[in-house]
Structure formats: structure tokens, C-alpha cells
């Protein structure tokens, strides 16, 4: 098992390199030189001073040298300083916002699993039943609904018309004065809509996938064998078939991570949640390139890490993987 993990880690190294190269290329797409920001508005800056400044930031060196210098800083997670007025290190800005984004994504992942798997299994077991047909229609609609629009409609319904749920932020203004249980409910009620909506996008895909998987497994010989042994249908489906159909779901969940992280930009912006997605959006709007690059890089690393976790859990669940 450990050997498998080590081998898997080694295959990640070239990917990680590739990620850094792409980030570096994207940075260099930016028009003008980073030093222009400091010199353009100052009429007394001479060409010579500009050169000195470029030398200070190593911009006079060949591009591959610049890449390695940048990489050296990246290894110790030095992502530079934000262009915004606070000039804080990018990594600090991301670190303080990352936990909430991860928390929301984990919660919605759990919700996806809890809802999509039973739907997929039930519609496979009762194939062509009314339930199967209704879910098929819902799944198609689910694929097509722009989730940010659904977010708007739910905000209008629950937030504005009914007034049940708050529609922005993660805490009320009077949060600090509430007794513990009310404070807890305050947090939960702020999270209900964002979690629900970020889960929504993944629900349709996973339930469809689960259904296809289950149908495939039910056709296998060992299921026929189990039935031939005289086991009850319930045991055959929920013990023999379900376990095998669940395995590939792990991979699918791993593959859905980039989508979830990418979606956090939309939800955090709509619901004003102070997470990484909102930071990214604000950085894009104010052209704060160091922050944009930092989040792009962290997002890719998170995806890589998610895939690793998925692969390792697959190997834990299915011994065949470890050997091959």
C-alpha cells in the first residue's frame, strides 16, 4: 500500500512542474512590465532608473532563469505580495480564506453523495419505473440549469419573499451577542443555500453515473450466482451489487473537485461569502495579478491533492488496483 502511494506521488511531480509552467506563462501574458506600475505615474523616472528597477526584480535575466527564480520562491510558498493597498503576502490572504471554501465544498460533496447515490441505485433497481423516468427528466434539467440563476431564484423565494434564510455573508451582524445555539443556527442558516446550490451541479452527474454503474453490475455473472444461491433480492442488490457499483464513484468524486472549486467563485460572489472564490473574483476585478496567480496555483494543487486522495481511497477499497 505504501509503495503504491509513493509511486503515485512520484507521478505527480511532472504534473506539478507542468502546473507551475502554465502559471508562469499566464503571468507573462500580462501586458507591460510589473515595474511600470511603480514608474508610469512618476515623470522623473529615467530610463536608467527603470533598468535598475527591472534588475532588482530580475526582469533583465533570460526567461528560463526568471522561471527558476520564481520556482525557488514558490517552493517555500512565497507567492509575492498583493498589489492592493494592504500589500500583504498573497499566501496569507489565501490561507485565511481557504478554510471556509474547503468547508463548503466538503459539505456539498457529502450532500452530493448522500442524495445522488440512493437516487442512482433506486432508479437502476426500478428501471423504467415512474421514479426512474421522473429522475431522468430532473437529471436533464439539472444538467442545463445555470446554478447562479437557481441561486437568484432561491434567494428571491427564501430570502426575500419568505424571509426564512439570510442571503449574504456567513454570519449576522449581531453574531457575537447571540447565545451559542443561536449562533450555531445563525451559521447554519447562512450556509444552507450556498451548500445546497454548489451541490446541485454535481447531483445530476453522479446520480446518472451511479445508475449506469448499477445497471452494469447487475448484469454481471456473480450477481446471477448470488441470485441462483437463493439469496433474497434485497441482499443481492444492497450487499453484492451496491458494493461493486460504489467503487468507481470514488474516481468520479475526485474528478468533480475542479468543478466544485471553480464554482466557488460564483457562489461566494453571489452570497458574499468571504472565501477563496470571492477573493479570486475581487482580485480579477482589480487586476491584482499576484493574488490571481496564487489562487490559480493553489486551485490546481488542491485538484491534484483531491485526485491523489481519490486514487488512494480507490486502492484501499479495491485491492486489484494496488497490484497493477
Amino acid at each position, binding site marked *: 500500500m505504501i509503495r503504491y502511494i509513493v509511486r503515485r506521488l512520484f507521478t505527480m511531480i511532472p504534473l506539478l512542474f507542468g502546473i507551475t509552467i502554465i502559471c508562469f506563462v*499566464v503571468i507573462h501574458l500580462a501586458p507591460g512590465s510589473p515595474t511600470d506600475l511603480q514608474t508610469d505615474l512618476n515623470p522623473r523616472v529615467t530610463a536608467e532608473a527603470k533598468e535598475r528597477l527591472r534588475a532588482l526584480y530580475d526582469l533583465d535575466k533570460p526567461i528560463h532563469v526568471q522561471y527558476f527564480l520564481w520556482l525557488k520562491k514558490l517552493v517555500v510558498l512565497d507567492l509575492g505580495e498583493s498589489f492592493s493597498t494592504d500589500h500583504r503576502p498573497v499566501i496569507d490572504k489565501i490561507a485565511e480564506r481557504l478554510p471556509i471554501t474547503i468547508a463548503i465544498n466538503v459539505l456539498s460533496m457529502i450532500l452530493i453523495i448522500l442524495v445522488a447515490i440512493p437516487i442512482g441505485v433506486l432508479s437502476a433497481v426500478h428501471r423504467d419505473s415512474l421514479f426512474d423516468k421522473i429522475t431522468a427528466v430532473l437529471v436533464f434539467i439539472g444538467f442545463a440549469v445555470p446554478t447562479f*440563476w437557481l441561486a*437568484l431564484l432561491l434567494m428571491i423565494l427564501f430570502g*426575500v419573499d419568505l424571509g426564512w434564510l439570510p442571503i449574504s455573508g456567513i454570519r449576522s451582524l449581531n453574531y457575537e451577542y447571540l447565545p451559542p445555539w443561536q449562533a450555531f443556527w445563525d451559521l447554519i442558516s447562512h450556509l444552507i443555500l450556498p451548500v445546497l446550490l454548489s451541490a446541485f451541479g454535481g447531483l445530476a452527474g453522479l446520480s446518472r453515473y451511479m445508475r449506469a454503474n448499477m445497471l452494469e453490475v447487475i448484469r454481471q455473472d456473480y450477481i446471477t450466482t448470488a441470485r441462483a444461491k437463493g439469496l433474497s433480492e434485497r441482499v443481492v442488490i444492497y450487499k453484492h451489487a451496491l458494493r461493486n457499483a460504489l467503487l468507481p464513484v470514488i474516481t468520479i468524486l475526485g474528478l468533480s473537485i*475542479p468543478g466544485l472549486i471553480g*464554482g466557488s467563485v460564483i457562489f461566494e460572489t453571489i452570497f458574499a461569502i468571504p472565501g477563496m472564490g470571492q477573493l479570486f473574483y475581487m482580485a480579477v476585478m482589480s487586476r491584482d*495579478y499576484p493574488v490571481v496567480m496564487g489562487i490559480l496555483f493553489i486551485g490546481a494543487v488542491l485538484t491534484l491533492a483531491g485526485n491523489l486522495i481519490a486514487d488512494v481511497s480507490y486502492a484501499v477499497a479495491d485491492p486489484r488496483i494496488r497490484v497493477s
Partner: protein
Amino acid sequence: MVCLFVVSFLAPWLSPFDPKAIDLAHVLEPPSTLHPFGTDQLGRDVMSRMIWGARISLKVGFIATGIAIVIGAMLGAIAGYYGRWTDSVIMRFVDIMLCFPSFFLILAVIAILEPSIWNIMIVIGLTGWMGITRLVRADFISLKERDFVQAARAVGASDMRIIFRHILPNAMASMLVAATLGVAGAILTESALSFLGIGVQPPTPSWGNILTAGKDNIDIAWWLSLYPGLAILITVLGYNLLGEGIRDSLDPRLRD
């Protein structure tokens, strides 16, 4: 879907009002017989804006997907046909690109370039080719050993000729399905970008940026939020169903 095409082609004649005409005397009016979908915060007719928005959405959807198909098919064909290290290099590149949450990559590039319709098409296309590469490569790997390819090679056809004349047409089926689903995806992405204010820029109407107005007036003007979203939903649903339909009719295994 056909309706949608007709509507977007005939936008100049169909739309009852000028989509950019500001009428401050009729701001945020609810749907009426004059303005079936109401008016927005500047008194512009929402229905006219949606009809023009259909044009933008289809344009972005098709051109972005076209770019993705060209890149994806080229790389997939080269990887699948030549195999060996060419294949490994291209497929590792695909793996790397897939590590980036595509929405992040799109936003990062848009932050650097100016948000404009053309940039959006290009960026959506440039970040959406990986799936097609994988499909085309898989088709090429299985097709290149077939007899008809061997025959073409035996009569001395060049690699380029074999790739474009003999194998690629046979790989069209899966590409067509991917392209149809790709159009749906690109329309969704464009509307999300425009909604966030980094896509199609006002005053040019797009379904996404009408929704932004809907969000800003969420507590008073529900019609600004409801109709453009429905338009996106129906369009994307249409393309998804079309894609599924093509897949089912092309794949005999699914016909039973």
C-alpha cells in the same frame, strides 16, 4: 432549437424595441402587454434584450466550441496516430490542463486580457479542448490498425492524408456529440462570466448580464431574474438533448 436560430438571425426585425434604448420614464416596469418581460433598471425592454442576447450566446457557443474542436482534434489525432513519446507528451499536457479548475483558468486569463466577446470565445475554446483530445485519440488508436488504414498506407498515402482523409472522418461521430454538448457548456460558461461582469460587457445585451441586473434588483424586479435564466435553461437543455440524441442514434449498442 430551430426557433432559437430563427430568433437570433431575425433579431433586428423581431425585437419590438431597441435593446439599448434607455427610457428613464419606464424604469423597472413589471411585465405588461407593451413589455411582455418587463423593463430593466434603465427602462430598456427586457424581451428585446433577450432576443439580441440569443445572438451573442449562440455566437459564443459555436465559435468557442469550434476553437476547442480544432485544437482537440489536432492534438488527439497526432497523439493517437503517432503514439509513443508524442502521445505521452500530449497526454501529460492534457493531464496538466485538467488540473486547473477551468473556471479559474478562464478568469485568470480574462483578468489579464480585456473582457470582450472575442476574448471570451477564445478563452473558453482554449480551456475546453481536453475532453475532445482524449476522445479523438482513443478513436485514432483503435482505427489506425484497421485494414483500410493499412491499405491506404500500402498505396503510399502520406501521414497527413491518412489522418485527415481516412481516419478523421471515422472519428467524426464522437466529435459531433462532444461538440453539441460543448456548445451547451460554452453557453453556460459565457452566461456565468457575463453574470459576474467579466463576460459580455454592457450595454451589449447578454442573458448573463441581464441576470446581473436581476441580482441588483432582486427584491423588486423578479422578471429580470426569471426570464433570461429560463432562456439559458431551455437552450442548454436543447443542446444536451440533441447531443444525447446523436449519441443514441450513432451507437447501435444503445438502441436496444
